[in-house]
């Protein structure tokens, strides 16, 4: 049996994930009447918060912290690659 994260760690992670989601929503300036392109720092914050959320979800919810470093690296690497592609597409769009 895999060593499980435990209720306390799960609740801490959930609180963190909820908080980061609210931060992402806030940093994207959710004012429908004032729709504008995000400042770069804000877009960067959204991507960073998303990456951190994905990492926490992988390590705690999916419990990969108890898997081998190779599996942890593979999944975190996939998330980083995905976010890099998203970020690169966004930046190219901004610069064009």
């Amino acid at each position, binding site marked *: *049996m*895999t060593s*499980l*994260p*435990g*209720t306390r760690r*799960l*609740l801490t*992670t*959930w609180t963190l*994930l*909820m908080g980061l*989601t*609210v931060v*992402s*929503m806030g940093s*994207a300036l*959710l004012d*429908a009447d004032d*729709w504008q*392109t*995000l400042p770069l720092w804000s*877009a960067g914050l*959204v*991507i960073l918060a*998303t990456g951190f*959320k*994905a990492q926490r*979800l*992988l390590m*705690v*919810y*999916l*419990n*990969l912290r*108890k*898997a*081998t470093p*190779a*599996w942890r690296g*593979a*999944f975190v690497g*996939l*998330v980083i*690659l*995905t*976010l890099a*592609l*998203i970020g*690169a*597409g*966004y930046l*190219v*769009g*901004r610069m*064009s």
Partner: protein
Amino acid sequence: MKEHELPNPGWGPLSALPGNPLMWVLILSEMLVFMAFFALFSSERAAQVALFDASQQRLDPLMGGLNTLVLLTSGLCVALAVEATAGQRIRRARQWLAAAMGLGVLFGVIKIIEYSSKFAIGITPDTNTFFGFYYGLTAFHFAHVLFGLALLGLVSWRTSLENVETAAAFWHMVDLIWILLYPLLYLLR
């Protein structure tokens, strides 16, 4: 870690992963498929920024954010169901699974409300490239939510640690994909 201490001894590289190892093959392949779609979306966005920005304004990021919060809470319920199953508290595990499924259904209801409001003003997948992606990606994800709900229902009936861990792994993957999808479609502009 010694081989006999691993969750799935005899499965080679997959032996260190919880639940049924074949589920992890599915999870990895699903992540790769979604990554390819995200890359395609990003490249199309880079080529048609004005169209994508104008279309994105017509989405409601609060609905998307609400759905993120709903899925994250559902993921917590599933993780707590795994904990309860490991502690032989099967009744409690089923309660957590029921809560997770209820939140999964709520996710679907919010999504349907969102789709309906778009269709009501004539926004369909054919409207433009952005909405083609919007409907395609979210509907493909929604199909995974439905499959996940079926899996959770199945393991609520056949409640063993391996079964619950397997369904939980799939459900968390659905959660993970949405975490990546939300900023891409709703937030980054």
